[in-house]
């Protein structure tokens, strides 16, 4: 009896407990495990445990030639595979000081933007699904299918393309490419209004997202949160504007910035980015110059010894590749600074003292892709 009396007294309000969100959970979008410390329904701490699909891509890169590395980068952020490929190509081209034909630059820019739209569409539908609007999922995937069809016709695959090679492209674009892309833009301009009607303006959605997971600009910079998530906090971090590659310096587009830094701002930035991407494609699609689809490259690429850093704006943020070459045909060290990995770091900070439902919304608004985290 005495023992029972001497037990430490926990007040019910203060008692915390843990739940495992993941590795198998509908809203972690893959095999991410979040150990969530809860007080009632209020999130007190989030500890991400990653590595469930760590494949050691960086280690594999040390054994592969630069052409072979391309197909590994596809598998990091599979939703913006082209943009990942672009980063490796730019790195190799920059190191070798190869001038790629204008045509290649135009095509790469168009395809990057198409890929960005496809990625944002998938983000939109999974975001809607995480908030409970299951119909969004099907609308997003339905429209994404059109982009995947364009990809499939030109490059033969839908998700992991390996279409860019150092110096150019695998093959020229399909003759139908321009027509299909223009058709898609026309189609999607109509459908994106549905997106707004079903989710953006909805009062339930506004209540679920406004003021949730607020991230200030300083916080975003300190945590290195780039991409649409960073721009929603007012940080102008668009690589396409700051360090232009491709033909981004020739096209007219706005860098979407918002200052609220909440889930709603992150949502709206991505919605507006889809429209901006369509604008970029419209400017370029009729003006693709004639020419070769690849520059003359040696069959075996050896980078001069040295260190190279190349960054591109992937759909999730800044994708950086840091490469140390010792003059061989394989790199000494290849580091991928993947946006999802860095963006995951802020999840704990901004989701504290929110509800579980908010944690799901915040996680979805950061647009994490798990293979991109684990690599």
């Amino acid at each position, binding site marked *: 009896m005495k023992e029972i009396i001497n037990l430490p007294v926990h007040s019910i309000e203060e008692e915390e*407990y843990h*739940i495992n969100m993941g590795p198998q*959970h*509908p*809203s972690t979008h893959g095999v991410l495990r979040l150990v969530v410390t809860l007080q009632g*329904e209020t999130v007190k701490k989030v500890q991400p445990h990653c590595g469930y699909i760590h494949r050691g891509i960086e280690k594999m890169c040390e054994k592969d030639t630069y052409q072979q590395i391309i197909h590994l980068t596809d598998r990091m952020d599979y939703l913006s595979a082209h943009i990942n490929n672009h980063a490796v190509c730019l790195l190799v081209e920059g190191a070798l000081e190869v001038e790629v034909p204008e045509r290649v630059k135009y095509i790469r820019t168009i395809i990057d933007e198409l890929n960005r739209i496809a990625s944002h569409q998938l983000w939109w539908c999974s975001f*809607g*699904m*995480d*908030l*409970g*609007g*299951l*119909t969004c*999922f*099907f*609308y997003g995937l*339905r429209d994404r299918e059109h982009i995947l069809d364009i990809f499939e016709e030109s490059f033969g695959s839908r998700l992991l393309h390996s279409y860019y090679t150092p110096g150019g492209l695998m093959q020229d674009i399909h003759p139908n490419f321009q027509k299909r892309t223009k058709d898609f833009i026309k189609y999607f301009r109509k459908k994106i209004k549905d997106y707004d009607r*079903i*989710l953006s303006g*909805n009062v*339930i*959605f506004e*209540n*679920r997202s406004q003021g949730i997971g607020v991230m200030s600009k300083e916080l975003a910079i300190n945590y290195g949160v780039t991409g649409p998530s960073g721009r929603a906090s007012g940080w102008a971090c668009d690589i396409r504007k700051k360090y232009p590659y491709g033909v981004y310096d020739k096209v007219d587009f706005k860098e979407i910035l918002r200052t609220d830094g909440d889930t709603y701002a992150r949502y709206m930035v991505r919605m507006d980015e889809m429209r901006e991407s369509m604008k970029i494609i419209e400017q370029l699609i009729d003006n693709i110059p004639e020419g070769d689809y690849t520059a003359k490259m040696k069959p075996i690429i050896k980078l001069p010894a040295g260190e190279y850093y190349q960054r591109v704006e992937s759909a999730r943020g800044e994708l950086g590749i840091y490469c140390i070459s010792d003059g061989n045909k394989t790199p000494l060290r290849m580091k991928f600074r993947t946006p999802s990995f860095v963006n995951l770091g802020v999840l704990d900070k901004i989701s504290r003292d929110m*509800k*579980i*439902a*908010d944690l*799901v919304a915040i996680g979805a608004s950061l647009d994490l892709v798990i293979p991109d985290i684990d690599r």
Partner: protein
Amino acid sequence: MAFNIYDFTSFNQSIDELLYEWLPPFWAMIVEMTIIGLVFLLAYAIVGLLLVYAERKVCAFMQNRIGPNRVGPYGIFQTIADFIKLLMKELVYIKDSDKLLFNIAPFIVIIASFMAIAAIPFAKGLHAIDFDIGIMYVVAVSSLGVVGILLAGWSSNNKYSLIGAMRSGAQIISYELSVGLSLLTIVVLAGTMQFSQVVELQSTGWFIFKGHIPAVIAFIVFLIASTAETNRGPFDLAEAESELTAGFHTEYSGIKFAFFFLAEYMNMFIVASIAATVFLGGWMPFHISGLEGFNHVMDFIPPLIWYIGKTAFIIWLMMLFKWTFPRLRIDQLLNLEWKYLLPINLVNILIMAFIVLMGWHF
């Protein structure tokens, strides 16, 4: 009246008299109850299966899909195949769960929904029992199901289940108020709680038209609150698939899960029936005063069809809610009830009382 040809009263009475003629009164009653029980059990299963199929088809069409289309023509046997699968599945034993409560919970949920069906008039004379406090009875009984949900979540020994159950408890207790008050608005107008009388009173016009704006408001409030009470989207916080994986029935498998599943759809059917009965005239045909020919044609459509049509319309509305809106958060859910629905409802009931007092209703 033309719809007398569809009157089930005499048919029921003849069976009743026949049984009492043949058997001693005690056994006659037993046999009668058994027959009614079996009929309802059968109807329950069929309606449940149909609703699951309808939900799949409806949501598929809203999402630009075809929906089930492999098992049987247009996939009509899909749900039957699914239930056979569920029947054959293993009932997983959960370590450290409270076995008694864990096993009993699905039955409480399904019995609660079963009891509520008893009072609903499907057509003239076609109801199991006609209480003179029918509305009160249905409201009371349909809220019993939450006990089952709470027990299910509590006994599963799973934190997800527990959170789901607690959410469900808070939710149903709150929304019970709005359901009751919005029905009360109509009770004020009708002056009776007996379902058969409520329907009879609507022979000159459905209450949603008779009761001016307060009745329309009460209808909307009832739709929202009853959607919440049945734990359906956008109020499906107890399940909250993307947050709590499956909420209170995370740990249930096989036939026990099927019970929860069936009960959810039957609850939807029940609240849709109540809404149809109380606001849209139940099995009463649609009449426009003055157009005798039109009314006559309407009378020839059997009341059961009217009833099913109205119920189906409301079920379709509830499906539209579920497949359009994102889910609310728990605090917003309670906000909606206590800050919006309840005050509106209270004012609404006052206005309705005033209208009835002044005799301004039709």
